[in-house]
């Protein structure tokens, strides 16, 4: 037993190490990035062995950044197939990318434990939506564990591996931003044994051809009752007031506990009856006990009103339910101690009065000397005087060009979308259709769109901002070396004379503008690679 100060992300990673994870895979994404960073820093070192790729004994343990969440997930599946423990981690929208392997892996006979860690970002601190991964676990019919603090993040990750192996199913571990990025003292347990290589004895357990898949689907459906019963057993019911029953999930518990003392003080010293749910699909036993005891219920959960909706059903619950669907708790944005306080009917705490002067927002912006800024200067200058153009962009630091003074991009939707959107627009007549994408995002999901463009010879220009790193999430390495981009583009079928490698620097501005103009005028697929290292990445390299 050791005590360590860990963030939620780090607690998950430490638990994976202690659980004997053999293969961990990820694509960077806030707020999940630090899971892989911690694993890479620690994996293999505890045993004094290097996790060298290709080593074929039990000491082989790898933690790797991958091209995208789908490739990461599929690598994890391979690890599970050969009987070793696997983890794949991502942000919530990353699960959309990995949805195909995720949903289908629910049907195979998971062998080595597979834990899928998904970090949701309610309030969209660093994301384009606030989707709730619990519903995707439900959709795939896999169990979902949701810790309420860093200690539980550690313990649930450990038990998720065991559960995955016991029930031969992937387990989704759902965390949220404030858990992922908050630090607290965590007590760890002794490390378990690392599993050896070894396949399952069932030759059809992983072959999802229709005849076999039907059997596997039936087997998965048959497990649901067990998942629910286990979720019910793991939930915690504390009897209290008969007036109010409170259901908490995840971090909702922390915000409830922050305020419950004041509620008790206002209600003769008695606390509400409290049910905490940490696993899904939700079981019914303790919920029935709660409903039969209390006069009304308040549901406090981070994300969508998922448990709340289950409780209501279609015909309504036997007691009034308050929560996100009735407005006591805001439907959008993350929970806070303050919003939960209001939902409990407690008066707000007085703060200091607002200042007499307006406080203007200070949005994030390009770092001093950022190569993207010089690229957008060149792009804007190349488009000067042009009435018709479409500048589609993508997910990464360069999305900051949407703001003044740049206003240089017109879309930011999902990873890789800039390439496909520019292509689609160009294919129906839009002139000067441009996709602006970072190198890491291009490798993630831009490439396949470019293949489409080459196939149909769509008149579009792709601008790849090649800064050699995944900058937004803290400068993780890009999967492909910078120097390989031109050869890759040529291999995809882009004409060599229309692959232009330019320096993303103000000293090259005139040449860059001229080259961009030439390619915008070309009636076919052209790719401009704007090259210069990320400033943050350079700092990181110099530090290490």
């Amino acid at each position, binding site marked *: 037993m050791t005590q360590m100060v860990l963030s939620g992300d780090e607690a998950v990673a430490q638990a994976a190490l202690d659980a004997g994870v053999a293969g961990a895979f990820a694509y960077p994404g806030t707020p999940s990035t630090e899971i892989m960073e911690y694993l890479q820093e620690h994996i293999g070192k505890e045993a004094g062995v290097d996790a060298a790729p290709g080593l074929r004994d039990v000491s082989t343990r790898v933690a790797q950044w991958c091209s995208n969440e789908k490739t990461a997930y599929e690598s994890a599946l391979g690890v599970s197939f050969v009987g070793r423990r696997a983890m794949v981690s991502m942000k919530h929208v990353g699960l959309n990318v990995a949805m195909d392997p995720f949903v289908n892996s629910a049907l195979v006979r998971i062998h080595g434990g597979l834990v899928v860690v998904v970090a949701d970002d309610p309030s969209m601190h660093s994301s384009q939506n606030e989707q709730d991964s619990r519903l995707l676990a439900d959709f795939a019919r896999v169990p979902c564990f949701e810790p309420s603090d860093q200690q539980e993040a550690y313990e649930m990750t450990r038990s998720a591996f065991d559960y995955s192996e016991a029930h031969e199913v992937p387990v989704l571990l759902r965390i949220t931003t404030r858990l992922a990025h*908050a630090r607290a003292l965590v007590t760890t347990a002794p490390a378990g044994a690392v599993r050896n290589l070894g396949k399952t004895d069932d030759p059809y357990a992983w072959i999802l051809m229709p005849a076999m898949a039907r059997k596997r689907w039936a087997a998965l459906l048959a497990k649901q009752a067990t998942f629910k019963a286990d979720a019910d057993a793991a939930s915690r019911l504390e009897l209290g007031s008969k007036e109010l029953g409170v259901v908490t999930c995840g971090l909702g518990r*922390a915000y409830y506990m922050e305020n419950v003392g004041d509620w008790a003080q206002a209600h003769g010293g008695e606390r509400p009856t409290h049910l905490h749910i940490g696993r899904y699909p939700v079981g019914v036993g303790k919920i029935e006990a709660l409903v039969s005891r209390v006069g009304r219920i308040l549901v406090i959960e981070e994300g969508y009103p998922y448990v709340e909706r289950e409780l209501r059903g279609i015909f309504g619950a036997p007691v009034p339910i308050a929560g996100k669907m009735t407005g006591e708790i805001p439907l959008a944005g993350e929970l806070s101690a303050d919003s939960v*306080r209001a939902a409990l009917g407690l008066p*707000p705490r007085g*703060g*200091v009065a607002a200042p007499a002067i307006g406080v203007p*927002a200070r949005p994030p912006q390009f770092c001093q000397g950022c190569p993207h800024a010089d690229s957008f200067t060149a792009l804007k200058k190349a488009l000067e005087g042009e009435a018709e153009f479409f500048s589609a962009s993508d997910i990464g630091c360069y999305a900051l060009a949407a703001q003044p003074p740049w206003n240089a991009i017109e879309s930011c939707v999902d990873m890789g979308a800039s390439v496909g959107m520019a292509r689609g627009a160009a294919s129906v007549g839009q002139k000067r259709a441009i996709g602006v994408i970072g190198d890491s995002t291009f490798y993630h999901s831009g490439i396949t769109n470019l293949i489409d463009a080459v196939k149909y010879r769509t008149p579009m220009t792709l601008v790849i901002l090649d800064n050699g790193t995944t900058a937004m999430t803290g400068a993780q390495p890009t999967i492909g070396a910078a120097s390989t981009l031109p050869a890759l583009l040529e291999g995809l079928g882009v004409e060599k004379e229309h692959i232009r490698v330019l320096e993303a620097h103000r000293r090259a501005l005139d040449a860059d503008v001229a080259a961009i103009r030439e390619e915008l005028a070309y009636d076919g697929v052209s790719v401009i690679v704007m090259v210069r290292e990320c400033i943050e990445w350079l700092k990181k390299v110099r530090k290490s």
Partner: protein
Amino acid sequence: MTCDIILCGVGGQGGLSVSVVIARAAMAAGLHVKQSEVHGMSQRGGEVLAHLRISDREIFSPTIPKGMADIIFAFEPLEALRHLSWLSAERGTVVAAMAPILNIPNYPDIDSVLGEIRKIPRARLVDAEALAKQAGNVRSANLVLVGAAADLLPVPPDAIEKEIVAFFSKKGEAVVQANLMAFALGRAIPHA
């Protein structure tokens, strides 16, 4: 005993190191600690906000409820005004650096910003940059602010000094000494 601390500034100012130093000192004293940070997009030159909660009892919420902060450390003056709703009206103290970071076009007149901070009861405006220069490293301004509120922290100054040494030791002796000096210069500021 509970000490709730808001740390705010502009992305890139490095307020996180201060949070870690105070948190480690508190943990070494056997206190409960929770720290909540901001990562990702907002780190790029935008407003950043971190929470540090210290208590002798179990801490639940990772973030501080509004109106409950005992201290706001503002590494930039406009950011102090942005986060006032967290400050306890009864006991809260704002400790703010005076030098503005002018990276937005509509930054208000700096004198009116400082004037607003002076209106807050118990506010401590600190010329952290000048004292940091005096300490020998402009990047030690954050620790000047910590020194200026050392009397409000739940751990004694020597515990903070010990963690400053531990935290900055890998950056070399000069950086350690500058940060210790910055902390001392902050402590030497007389309070009203």
